[in-house]
């Protein structure tokens, strides 16, 4: 699956906004990391080391809530700047 910067088919491309591909690729990596890490269960399915009484298995996944959130937000900022459009000002955060 591409990140949304490919033309859906072989039509001429002027309709697609100019895109910084390196930033989009970086955003893609940031989005892929949590998916790969959390699906790779063997590396965290263990009890030790515990934290505040929580086995590793549990606190490690809670930790990824925040890491994933941060990575998704970074990817969000990257895609905004990669497309160079600033339409997100109006009507948000009311």
């Amino acid at each position, binding site marked *: *699956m*591409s*990140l*949304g910067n*490919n*033309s*859906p*088919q072989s*039509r001429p*491309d002027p*309709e*697609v*906004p100019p895109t910084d591909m390196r930033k989009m690729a970086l955003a893609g990596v940031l*989005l*892929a990391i*949590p*998916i790969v890490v*959390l*699906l*790779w*269960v*063997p590396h965290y*399915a*263990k*009890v030790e080391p*515990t934290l*505040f*009484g*929580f*086995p590793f*298995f*549990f606190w490690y*996944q*809670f930790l*990824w*809530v*925040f890491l*994933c*959130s*941060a*990575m*998704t*937000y970074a*990817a*969000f900022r990257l*895609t*905004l700047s990669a*497309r160079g*459009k600033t*339409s*997100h000002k*109006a*009507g*948000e*955060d*009311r």
Partner: protein
Amino acid sequence: MTPELTVLAADTDGVNGVALAVLVVLFLIVTVAGFMASRFKRADSMESLDEWGLGGRSFGTWITWFLLGGDLYTAYTFVAVPAAMFATGAVAGFFAVPYTIILYPIIFIFMARLWSVSHRHGYVTPADFVRGRYDDRGLSLAVAVTGFVATMPYIALQLVGIQAVLEVVGLGGGDNIIAKDAPLFIAFAVLAAYTYSSGLRAPAVIAFVKDILIYLVIIVAVIYLPGQVGGWEAIFGAAEDKMDANNAAAVEAGLNPTSSFVPGSGAFWAYATLALGSAMALFMYPHSVTASLSSNSRNTIRRNASILPAYSFVLGLLALLGWVAIAAGTQPIGLDGEPNAQLVIPQLFEDMFPSWFAGVAFAAIAIGALVPAAIMSIAAANTFSRNIYKEWINKGATPAQEAKVSKLMSLLVKAFALVFVLTLDKQNAINFQLLGGIWIMQTFPAIVFSLFTRWFHRYGLLLGWAVGLVYGTVEAYQVVNPVTGKHFGGSTALIPGIGELGYIAVTAFVLNVVVAVVVTAVMRAMKVSNGHDETIPFDYFADADDPRVQKDLVEHDADVATDARAPHHEADGDDVPGSTPAR
């Protein structure tokens, strides 16, 4: 409370009067809010799907956040997941945490494109998009029917949640067939009435109340309860002991040990595929798409993808409450005297909290089930009226007729769900959602792949869907609950070629994609037409207030007017990007 209420629960330890009073008062407040909601961001007329079904497509980051949260964190979260943790441990229940984490990167990738193309063409449902992408009524019908049917067990799960609260508070149950389910019917009728009158605005408004209640209850529960039962170390210790004892008992009875404290090496595939499959399936449901499309900008969804994980943290804590209940020695016994794991969280609250706060907690759970039930029924109804009624029954339907049909179907869908609840085995509540996931995930290639490419052939997607659906249903049917001997007893089966247990939805999905690829290759070699695509590349990037939309819109409309192959452009007239945000 009044004597007749006590009679309803004659064979239990009675009605918890204070808790019931608090529950009823909060329920009434929410009901009034639901009916008043039609004034919220008021439109001139509610008689169209954009207004009734998408709230005028005008919701910003915070409303969308509450709405999506109200949508995704449901009785599944408060009742089914902790119950699964309580009964069989981490593999059965805690996979919901990685599921709701990896969910957001996944939707980040495709949902903004779906938002853009939907706004450019006035799509309300995923099936609308598929119809526009391939101009293929068969494929669109497949997506619509799958969405409609897969939503029903999910709504049923919500009603199980409401029923669990009512049962613990002492209402319902008993021998009288009418009194037994009367409270559920009343809650159901109220829900149906305000959904009918206010549309999507009702759950959007109630979602605020719901989330405030939920957060209040969760914070109190996770701070107060662990201390009451000896701290987290004691809780994990008690859970480990119970899971070990479960497994020892299972081995003794000649069954496979299925309980787990931390997943063992035999359960890695199951844990990962349950998480991945659930995450990929969730945003194929019409209700998730509805909530996303009702946001006012393409980037609202992406921004939300980075703040919604706050709910995943809460979900993890809620899941662990299932183990707090183990440490607390909670006995979830139903009004019929049988143990019922689904009651474990309400029972824990009733045992551990003062009555008035138990009432607040019950209200949080019940309202937390009502909101998604309303959103799901609206979305399923939209799907019916757009993609089945308008497409196959009344082609010339006006927007007002469409809205009317949607309103009526929203009642009918809930009635179907009620039938599910009254007839199926409720011990298995989490399995309702997993079964729906097996079906709905088979629409993933047609929707998500098509957002990025038209390489796949419409017949390949249709055949892949059919194969995945049949395989998934047959496999799920063959899973027999070893205790009750019933079919559809679980959602994991051996993955062919790997020999480990995995979520059936993922296996069926892989099969689906393989079939789609092979058939596509054949169709392309034979040069079979892949239908007409009414979308253009720019559609996938459009944003509501992007100045370029205005300019390109003029050109696009000029193209459309001269393009005779695009029949439903002339008919629709709602092909305006972002409509007009109603703020």
